[in-house]
């Protein structure tokens, strides 16, 4: 891989690489409101007619720009494709004329080469179910894995050491050792997870209905926070069939194996 990258770095002026970079650019960077045709500028800055450093362009394309609209393409484009885009962007540096009409893509050309799920086939279905957007509530509503999802519930890489039968029983359990019961002065009672506190405030995740709500309560508002409650994890996963929950387990195992 390193050899390949080095090779590409040396070939940033290669017409084939530039042409490949252009194809990716057209479907990835010049679309809609972004950098415009031929880097003419859009919501993103103009790239045309601008002297740019290759390492800078590579870094920004790969990692994105923090606190900006520029996304990181690492994990979405192959590294050699990022370098091809860099080659194309550098080729625009001497452009002075406005970009020509956008006729670059012949009909029927497929999308830029996005990376697919990097894990094994048996984990793919579980991954897709974990993040399934067609379900209002999905695992990722409360759990984060692979830098996606909302990190509220426990880190599932720890839990994934259990054997599959135990894991399934944990997922479908009727008790949770993490969830507490909060009682407020107002009479309100809700299942809660602790999220932080200081001398004045207590932060609790309210688990009454997904998605969890991070509530900041004055200590004087709270009557008690106790263990033991009737909150059931089984209830929040009821829109998954047993067979689907079983299919998620190999994905959890695979994510655990990726731990560094």
């Amino acid at each position, binding site marked *: 891989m390193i050899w390949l990258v080095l090779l590409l770095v040396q070939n940033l002026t290669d017409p084939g690489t530039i042409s490949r970079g252009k194809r990716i650019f057209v479907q990835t960077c010049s679309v*809609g409101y972004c950098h415009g045709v031929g880097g003419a500028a859009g919501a993103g800055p103009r790239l045309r007619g601008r002297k740019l450093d290759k390492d800078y362009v590579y870094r920004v394309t790969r990692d994105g720009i923090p606190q900006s609209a520029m996304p990181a393409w690492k994990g979405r484009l192959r590294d050699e494709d990022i370098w091809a885009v860099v080659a194309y962007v550098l080729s625009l540096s001497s452009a002075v004329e406005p970009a020509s009409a956008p006729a670059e893509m012949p009909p029927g050309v497929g999308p830029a080469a996005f990376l697919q799920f990097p894990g094994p086939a048996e984990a793919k279905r579980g991954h897709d179910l974990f993040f399934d957007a067609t379900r209002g509530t999905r695992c990722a509503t409360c759990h984060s894995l692979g830098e996606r999802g909302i990190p509220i519930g426990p880190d599932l890489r720890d839990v994934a050491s259990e054997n599959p039968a135990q894991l399934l029983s944990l997922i479908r359990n009727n008790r949770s050792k993490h969830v507490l019961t909060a009682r407020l002065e107002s009479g309100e009672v809700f299942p809660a997870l602790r999220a932080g506190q200081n001398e004045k405030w207590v932060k609790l995740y309210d688990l009454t209905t997904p998605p969890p709500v991070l509530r900041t309560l004055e200590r004087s508002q709270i009557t008690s926070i106790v263990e033991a409650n009737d909150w059931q994890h089984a209830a929040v996963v009821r829109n998954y069939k047993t067979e689907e929950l079983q299919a998620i387990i190999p994905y959890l195992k695979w994510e655990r194996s990726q731990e560094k």
Partner: protein
Amino acid sequence: MLLMAEDGSTRANWPHYGGTYQFWRYSALEQINRSNVKKLVPVWAFQTGVVDGGLQATPIVVDGVMYLSSSWNRVFAINAETGRELWHYYYQNPRQIGIIYSPWNRGVAVGEGRVFMGTLDNYVVALDQKTGRELWKVNVEDLQQCGCNITGAPLVVKNKVMVGVTGGDSAHRGYITAFDVVTGRMAWRFYTIPGPGEKGHETWEGESWKYGGGASWMTGSYDRELNLVYWGIGNPAADFYGESRRGANLYTDSVVALEPETGELKWYFQQIPHDVWDWDSAYESVLLDLPVKGKMRKLLLNTNKGGYTFVVDRTNGEFISAWPVAEAINWIKGVDEKGELIERYEPQIGKPTFICPSVGGGRQWNQGAYSPQTGWYYTTGIEWCQEVTAQKEEPKEGLNFFGGVLQLKPPPTGRAYGHLDAYHPVTGQKFWTYSSKYPLLASVLATAGDLIFTGDAEGDFFALDAQSGTKLWSFQTGSGHRGSSISYAVKGRQYIATPSGWGSAVAGLMPQIWPETEEFRSGSTLFVFALPEEGP
């Protein structure tokens, strides 16, 4: 008159994003009027400290306190008389946003003792109105997965706060969500694209409904009497490539009427079936009661990005009329008496197609204003075109899903420009026009002083005579206008407030026609004007 028209005017307060729930953006205050507007002077200015993305918000004023939001989700409570800060809340966004719908915020909502804001990383927060302390925070959907977030102002109706999401140009399925104002618990979600088994699902081909866009990125209106919330829905995705989503693609490019308690759909009106131009219908819905053919009707007026204003009966969605706000329009020949589009002209796949207006719109999202005094609707229009090349694209969840590229061009007349016009709200008859060198990208404010206020790209904030369109007063604020001016009063003194600060995606596209605009200065300052106080 048999039917009492509900008053959509504001007075001392500017309580909602659109002024009132009816979205008139009309102040009944008349201390500042045609005869004395020349004497307006700045009384204070407020700097948010973040110029990135400009200042696009509409301030809210309640009982002498102004609530203002800026890019990167800062919220300020300001003494509306003196300009002194009362509290601020700086939301902590993650370092990596990487989404095209950023970093601006278009406003907060105030109600039930709370200030509500949607965030760039797709949360809703509720703050204590008195202190700015965060009370609750809830995730709407994972930003990195959905490629969507919140830049529009929330809408508070009764005990619910409703928010739309961006994501109309991402592979994402849009929705509107309501949360309980006290607990933050989700009350309902209305998907703008019906799922399997739901009515309207058949208007989507295959799996296209999963990634079909339908963003709800602006703010809804509310009719108290009918108890209906109206929300404009954006374009289907991929924007320019429609071959894999054949069908009408409901409820994209529609106005939907929802019951606020449940989110249940009561009616819809789709302006553009199977949009392939990125013509959102996501802008504001103005609620008016006016006679049509001699009979009083409850109307809803919604201008879309394709440059057409659609007027429907807001009790049932029945089509009344449609009229254009720009001259450079070639994607249709017009709209017939049933509300159907006449002769569509669509972008071709793999071949540049000259389409007017540009993707920036025959009008931008910045709102128009209705004056019950003149009976006219005041809105901007933009003359510009583009070459679009549609291209086949597969959806990648949460990533851009445009299905095409574009290059902005002047119209065939050779002159690209912006204008502000006075119209009859039902017939579209034009009474006057005010032209500007660049697109006018700020909202319009109308007042009972018979004045129309807005700002331009070059930084001038100005007042026009509502009757004639004659410019009466102007003030250079130092940066272009992209937000929404308001009027309010404290202790009997009327104020006019305007955000100043150039930025946004559309401002970013402008150099394709006007290269010099690439170097326009951004900013983020709120200016407040009033008549000079009587001297001793």
